[in-house]
């Protein structure tokens, strides 16, 4: 039952073949069985999930009109607040904090009857590409437990790959949904910036952060996308326009006549051979399905990483200032006679991990008087240039594509002491965030050299998210008929039901 797609689970709930309580219990059992190996979850809300499932079953029994995902379980990245449920953002500084309010994403999930199983592990405050920066220990890639599941949303991706949940929510600031999806053989979408409310998403970099849907199929991802997306008056940057018709696009999966732009700069040197091979094969499949493959150039992408590592740390240095022990979370050094200043200092010293401190320092420096223009100011100009690159490329094509990441999953510990090598993981995903457009990663095969999944990235213009779903669904269908079974069926068993 847990190996099914969310769409199939939904059908089984509608037909009465199963109940939400049974489905939820099956996933809770799976979590109990494998999470000591995977460590996808920071908190499992057994009681809350079963209660929510029972409510959905009761409503269905009364004949109430239900949304398509009502009763289907989901794993929530621990960076989105859920009333009464611990939210840590993978940081010690928020240990024990229970939010008194729901994020808009959670409100939308609850309204749709989606059952929230618990909170998933992540790099502290979403800063990282491996989930090794979690203060609560790393998550392990279900394909190979000695490898990273990507990051920052490694917990959400691993939960999907380990069949602990059929749906998950991630957040993507520079690739934190797409890169974990790529290295775990799952699907992840970063919607257009402003497409999903950020209210209740604990901010890392406000102008880049975007919550999005994660699942094992393109259609499941689309179903979840439509549940969480839409205008929210509580988020000023939320776009007040109809949600793109992504479910219809995913169901059609039509690419005939579409122009697919291959980004010249996001390929070649630095990309693993198996990654390139699977990417090229996917392009052939899309061409066979009727798409026209063109090459597009984005000359300013080469500055994206550098600009990102000025903008994101700058915003984070300000966003994370509120963690000061005054109102919530960890409080250290509050002894008799200690000043507020020393409590703030000690709490932040103890509460934040190395990577978070590194970025706070970077950002503080970049925003300093006298350096602002050279760093933050220049980075914003690069951002404009990247947007212009996308705009001119989208004049020549409907979507742009690239490998999601240069490599497959690396070993835990391999890059932990080399931040620059770690940052390079996101070289192909960061431009999408810089321009605020939509991006998807879906599995496109196994790299022959290491047997690990490879991600295929599709990028679509602002509020044209349906385009990447059309292309994603077409490619998924072509690959499935080639493979004969979903990619995840090739993943080594973790034991138990899967």
């Amino acid at each position: 039952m847990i190996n099914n797609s969310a769409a199939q689970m939904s059908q089984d709930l509608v037909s009465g073949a199963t109940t939400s309580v049974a489905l939820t219990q099956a996933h809770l059992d799976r979590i109990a069985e494998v999470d000591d190996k995977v460590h996808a979850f920071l908190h499992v809300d057994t009681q809350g999930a079963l209660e929510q499932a029972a409510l959905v079953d009761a409503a269905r029994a009364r004949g109430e009109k239900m949304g398509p995902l009502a009763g289907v379980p989901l794993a929530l990245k621990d960076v989105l607040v859920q009333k009464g449920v611990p939210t840590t953002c993978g940081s010690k500084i928020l240990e024990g904090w229970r939010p008194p309010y729901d994020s808009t994403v959670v409100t939308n999930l609850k309204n749709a009857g989606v059952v929230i199983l618990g909170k998933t592990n992540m790099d502290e405050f979403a800063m990282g590409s491996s989930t090794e920066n979690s203060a609560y220990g790393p998550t392990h890639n279900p394909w190979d437990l000695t490898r990273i599941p990507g990051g920052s949303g490694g917990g959400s991706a691993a939960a999907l790959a380990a069949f602990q949940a059929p749906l998950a929510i991630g957040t993507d600031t520079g690739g934190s949904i797409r890169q974990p999806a790529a290295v775990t053989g799952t699907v992840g979408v970063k919607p257009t910036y402003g497409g999903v409310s950020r209210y209740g998403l604990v901010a890392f970099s406000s102008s880049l952060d975007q919550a999005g849907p994660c699942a094992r199929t393109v259609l499941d991802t689309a179903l979840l996308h439509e549940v969480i997306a839409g205008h929210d008056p509580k988020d000023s940057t939320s776009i007040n326009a109809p949600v793109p018709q992504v479910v219809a696009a995913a169901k059609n999966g039509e690419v005939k006549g579409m122009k697919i732009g291959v980004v010249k700069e996001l390929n070649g040197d630095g990309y693993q051979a198996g990654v390139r091979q699977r990417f090229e094969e996917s392009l052939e499949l899309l061409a066979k399905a009727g798409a026209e493959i063109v090459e597009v150039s984005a000359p300013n992408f080469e500055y994206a990483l550098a600009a990102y590592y000025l903008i994101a740390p700058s915003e984070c240095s300000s966003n994370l200032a509120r963690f000061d022990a005054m109102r919530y979370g960890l409080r250290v050094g509050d002894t008799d006679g200690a000043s507020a200043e020393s409590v703030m200092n000690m709490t932040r010293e103890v509460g934040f991990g190395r990577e978070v401190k590194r970025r706070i320092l970077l950002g503080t420096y970049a925003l300093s008087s006298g350096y602002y223009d050279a760093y933050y100011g220049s980075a914003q100009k690069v951002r404009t240039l990247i947007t212009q690159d996308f705009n001119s490329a989208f004049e020549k094509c409907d979507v742009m594509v690239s490998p999601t990441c240069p490599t497959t999953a690396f070993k835990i510990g391999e890059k932990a002491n080399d931040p620059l090598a770690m940052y390079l993981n996101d070289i192909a995903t960061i431009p999408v965030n810089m321009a605020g457009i939509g991006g998807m990663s879906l599995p496109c095969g196994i790299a022959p050299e290491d047997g690990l999944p490879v991600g295929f990235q599709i990028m679509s213009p602002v509020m044209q998210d349906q385009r990447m779903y059309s292309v994603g669904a077409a490619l998924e269908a072509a690959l499935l008929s080639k493979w004969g079974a979903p990619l995840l069926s090739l993943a080594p068993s973790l034991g138990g039901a899967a």
Partner: protein
Amino acid sequence: MSALTYEDVISKYEPVLGLEVHVELNTHSKMFCGCSTIFGAEPNTQTCPVCLALPGALPVVNEKAIESTILIGLALNCSIAPFSRFARKNYFYPDMPKNFQISQYDEPICVNGYVDVEIDTDEGPQSFRIEIERVHMEEDTGKSLHVGGATGRIHGADYSLLDYNRAGIPLVEIVTKIVPGTGKYAPEVAKAYVAELRDILRALGVSDVKMEQGSLRCDANVSLRLIGSDVLGTRSETKNVNSLRSVERAVRGEMIRHAERLNKGEKVVQETRHFQEDTGLTRSGRSKEKAEDYRYFPEPDLVPVTPDAKWIETLRAGLPERPSLRRKRLQEQWSVPDKEMAAMINADVLNIVEETVLLGADPTKARSWWLGEISRLANEKEVAISELAITAKDVAEIVSLVAQGELTDKLARQVVEGVIAGEGTPAQVISARGIKVVNDDGALMAAIEKVCSEQSETADKVRNGHLPAAGALIGAVMKETKGQADAARVRELLLGHLGQAAN
């Protein structure tokens, strides 16, 4: 005590002013969330995830606050920016929940305005133009109460209590350009400017403008330079100036303090100073030599403010009459002497007098009631005139009754007192207390005859032409009629009765 006199200072130095005024807007909800802004609620009861800076919460701009700020900008002759942005001002302090303040930095909403203020000088009234650099929006901080310690400041306190009710209340900051050329009148000009701003803001209805409650706060920047020099001196910034009188005192005091240092060859330190209400002096706050780096950058959680040009024109068309022009107009219309006009403004009765006049009362009579008897009763009860239970309509009615001879001035005062005591409208007070003018000549004559026979000696004096003696008899008659008679009519009848023609 200072050896320098103010005259010494101004004979050598020219003061340069710069004034920053913070205004709390009177919107019902906060700048970036829906919390109430009512003053004086229980600590931390007017808070939510947004103004407590809980993780994940986001600000949303209060449109009413934008409207109020644009109104202020228009009233101060500013240009309204078609595109302005909020910025984050980053610094750590326990009463600032996010540890950054959402403010505006290099892209404020209103720029380049001016206000003309008039003060009395040795050469008569003189007008000074104060140029406005910018008007921008920001949010207030919470309040800290530092318990223990000698200074009431965070350093040395045993513990601090935080109240976030004020956190996020909309603030507007109005910043002048440097104001040179005021010479010895700098303190008066500074005071007149703040007074003019207060009047304008009150007329706009955008703020309570209560300096004592902190809804209008002034920071006075003062520097001195040698007369004739065009190089600016080092400035000090005096905070905590909580009344119009203090603005004047603070500027004067700082001018003397700077001059003393400069005369001794010492440098003026660029610093924040705190005004001391009791001494009129300032004490040093934090030094600004190590300028704090606020690491401003555009607030990514908010979209730029782009007010529609049509909306701005609608707001401009609805601006109220400029208070200083209105005062001039009313003074002319009512033929009020300068001193009386000033008294009315000081007592804050201009609006209610105008309202009374608009209801048909004679301007002089209306003014004298509000400024005289009613002000006196308010003082006696130690409340503001606006808190008394008497309206413009009541006073207009009383003025009319006096004019018709239905009430004497003395009876009218009883009616006013009754209305203020909550006994109802003038008509109700008159009827309940049985107040009426005795204008029945028969009844008056009976009283006159009675008094004249009781005080026959005095009556004889009057009969013999000694008219000043009549006063005592008139008084006695008034007493006899319990003050309800018209004294003029009593005099007329009395003199006639005693064979003297009334004049």
